[in-house]
């Protein structure tokens, strides 16, 4: 029906706008999520504690067991004045995935490159001119931009970060190790934004399964009442 086509058309227009890249200069990679894996979450939490916690807090996870086990505790969380960091202090990251996306984070954290014009000495393809320094220089190494900035802005969203950045000085980790490392952090942040995820996955099938069984019985009961009414209607 024409009506359905309309709906699909309208929906795709809407989807295109809401899921657009925002300010990113490159196409985002797809973050391989695996939130059910507690070991990986714990690994990510530990990386967070080692690297990010110096600047970022994780306020809403005070009583979360994975978070506590990794040593992310209130006493260690930094508190910044609104005016520090040139008015853009490192924000709390408990809810970051709700605002950005996992894909955004996964790409952002790997897309730093050397840029001497910036106060931090680095710039980022996904979040141009961010004031966050690259926390991974020792692990990832340093990357150089292969094309000019102007060309990059013209071809916004056409390339992937790995096509325009080249590792010029390797760090302690191999490329694969580093991807895995970032993936762990992103997984933890996805979990942090909504820890109910694991519980929802666990209870969901039971609740819906129960309702489906209930549906079977009430539908049978209803049909047995209404068969009668239908028979009489057609006899008349």
């Amino acid at each position: 029906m024409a009506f359905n086509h309309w709906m699909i058309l309208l929906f795709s227009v809407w989807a295109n706008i809401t899921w657009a890249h925002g300010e990113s200069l490159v196409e985002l990679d797809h973050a391989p999520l695996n939130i059910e894996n507690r070991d990986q979450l714990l690994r990510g939490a530990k990386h967070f504690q080692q690297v990010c916690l110096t600047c970022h807090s994780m306020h809403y996870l005070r009583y979360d067991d994975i978070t506590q086990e990794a040593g992310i505790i209130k006493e260690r969380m930094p508190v910044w004045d609104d005016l520090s960091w040139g008015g853009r202090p490192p924000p709390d990251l408990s809810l970051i995935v709700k605002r950005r996306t996992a894909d955004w984070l996964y790409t952002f954290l790997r897309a730093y490159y050397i840029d001497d014009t910036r106060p931090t000495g680095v710039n980022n393809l996904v979040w141009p001119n961010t004031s966050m320094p690259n926390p991974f220089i020792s692990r990832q190494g340093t990357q150089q931009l292969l094309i000019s900035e102007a060309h990059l802005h013209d071809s916004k969203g056409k390339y992937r970060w790995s096509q325009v950045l080249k590792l010029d000085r390797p760090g302690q980790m191999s490329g694969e190790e580093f991807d895995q490392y970032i993936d762990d952090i992103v997984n933890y942040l996805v979990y942090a934004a909504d820890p109910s995820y694991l519980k929802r996955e666990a209870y969901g099938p039971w609740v819906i399964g129960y309702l489906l069984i209930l549906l079977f019985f009430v539908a049978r009961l209803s049909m047995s009442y209404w068969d009668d009414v239908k028979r009489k209607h057609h006899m008349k």
Partner: protein
Amino acid sequence: MSLNKWINDRLPIDDFVDQHLRHYYAPKNLNFLYFFGSLAMLCLGIQILSGIWLLMYYEPTVETAFDSVEYLMRDIPFGWLLRYTHAAGASAFFVILYMHVYRALLYGSYRKPRELLWLLGLFLLILVMAESYTGYILPWGQMSYWAAKVIMNIFGSIPVIGPPLMHLIQGDYVISEATLQRFFAFHVVVFPMVLLGVVFIHLCALHTVGSNNPDGIEIKDNLDKDGIPVDGVPFHPYFTIKDIVAAVVFLIIFFAVIFYDPTFHGLILEKENFIPADPLVTPPEIKPTWYLAPYYAILRAVPDQLLGALAMLASLFIFAFMPWLDRAPVKSMRYKGTRSRVSLFLFVVSFLSLMVLGLLPATPTNTILARIATIVFFGFFLTLPYITVYDNHKTPPDRVRM
């Protein structure tokens, strides 16, 4: 036994149940579109119950509102379930109400003798909107704050009474803690109480005139020798069981959303609302919730702010004239002519388009589309008296079809 009698001598519970369930006759050809009334009551129940529990943890101050919601989601056992239920419940309520209203448009349920039932329904719709608007401010996220501000500015733009009215509603010259607490009181006490009362009256009106049906003919015109409609069946057990089936189907979909996609790609809970409110930072775009988006699109479509606000109000209140605008000799779309059908179809398309456009940024193309959709929207009502008279209507049968 004797306790039962003792009570019934003093309070006619049995009579009431007999009169309104066992011996209340509803047309036997009611289809699935008739489930949405009882589903709306279910939604109201879900909202009130989950709301009471949220209330136990929510703290309505600027400092604590956002945090108390996040703590509830994380630190209180099943707090996430309560919050997601309440948030998804609001959206579900509107899906159901819009279907409920669409049903009335489709089968002419607003026509004599159900005018008052229809007007009470419209009042309920506006109340539910007010309820969700006041609730939306409570988590005190960015979108809570800025959406509240946009609507308040609309009030403020009314000549003469605007500014004092805005001051009265906000309790302050700007959106502040006073506003938050005012909205809290309205959301938690005033609107729910009025809603419950009006739902009761809506049902009283319904039981006085009886349900319409997909054929749009009155079952009370065909009574048997005992004065019972031949095409009616007792509400209990026939419709109680059917409504229960509908409720279970609804709950399956509802819980599937809550357990597997509770923010529904930002349609149930927007991304921006996971940032605490900040009066100094305007979000890149201020969006209404999807169910209020059509009216927002109309507001933006009109070049002048005051006229836009009037058009927005008109887009709600114009529904009140439906019973008198429709002059067709038949009620149901089943027997109405081609023009009436095309007209309703265009109306639905315009409403859905406005909904999508209200969520998109107001680019020049979108504004033009919104203007066209606004004209089609109002055109539906304004042309109704002519279209319904000059149309090739069919003759409905004497008895309902099944």
